[in-house]
């Protein structure tokens, strides 16, 4: 078979000497203690009637349905409407309600980027994140490297995201360790003065809401 291909090595699909690394299936990994406990507790709660299997599924679907779109809409409104921005800086959850957005029961704090201060969010202890407004956190947000380096060398981490700031701008790292979640209001890009809220919403990215990037008009 190898000769048919004109190669000088054996080429047999059943015994390829340089196998493509196989992406493991879910069942190929071990069932860890915590995986088993999670399953067991969920089943117990359903068996005991604390909630139904259907409610459980709906809650998971609700969490999965959250996306940065809600946070982006709020930021665009804040750019367009100074009163709304003031409300958002005072109480994000109430401001969200004004836009028919459910920000959930955990208080979310908005922190505003200015020419002098650049805010960025991390949770050094775990992975606290404003899920109700911007969905599930990216994997890098939960990584040990991000969580430890963002407080130790924020400028180096930001540079890896392409964000380089002059030394006279204060980098303000918010460590979300307790009962609060954080959302960054990025700076409105230049040249967007004539844009309506919908067009502004399209400019806002997830990473800018975490504070690891700036927004540009392109």
């Amino acid at each position, binding site marked *: 078979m190898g000769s048919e291909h004109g190669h000088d090595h054996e080429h047999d699909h059943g015994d390829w000497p340089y196998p493509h690394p196989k992406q493991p299936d879910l069942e190929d990994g071990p069932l860890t203690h915590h995986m088993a406990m999670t399953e067991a507790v969920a089943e117990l709660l359903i068996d005991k009637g604390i909630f139904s299997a259907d409610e459980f599924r709906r809650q998971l679907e609700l969490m999965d349905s959250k996306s940065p779109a809600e946070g982006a809409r709020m930021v665009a409104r804040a750019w367009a409407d100074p009163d709304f921005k003031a409300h958002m800086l005072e109480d994000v959850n109430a401001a969200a309600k004004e836009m028919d957005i459910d920000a959930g029961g955990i*208080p979310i704090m908005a922190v505003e980027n200015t020419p002098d201060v650049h805010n960025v969010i991390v949770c*050094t*202890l775990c992975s606290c994140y404003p899920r109700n407004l911007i969905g599930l956190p990216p994997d890098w947000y939960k990584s040990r490297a991000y969580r430890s380096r963002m*407080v*130790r*060398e*924020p*400028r*180096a981490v930001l540079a890896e995201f392409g964000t380089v*700031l*002059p*030394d*006279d*701008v*204060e*980098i*303000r*790292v*918010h*460590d*979300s*360790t*307790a*009962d*609060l979640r954080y959302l960054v209001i990025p700076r409105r890009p230049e040249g967007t003065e004539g844009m309506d809220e919908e067009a502004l919403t399209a400019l806002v990215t997830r990473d800018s809401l975490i504070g690891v990037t700036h927004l540009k008009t392109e």
Partner: protein
Amino acid sequence: MTARYSVGDKVRVRRADPPGHVRTPTFIRDHAGTVTKVVGSFANPEELAYGRPGTPKQTLYWVQFPQTELWPDYQGGLKDTSVVDVYESWLDPAEEGA
């Protein structure tokens, strides 16, 4: 409940290493910072984690630390800071001149 500290107060995070579900990260312990917001009172998560009611409630603060205070060899702007959510039980008044 009354908050012991106000915005602008200098505080020092306790140097302690208790076991359990502690919400105060190690890198700020025994470091001095400034209260920048009195957030409100919350059931104590260090108690809630063990199924207890979390009382008495704890006042939660934003404490802002210069990065150069946290990391003596910090490479970056001198104005750079970290702001950490800290519960009152972890804070002492900072000594004069801190």
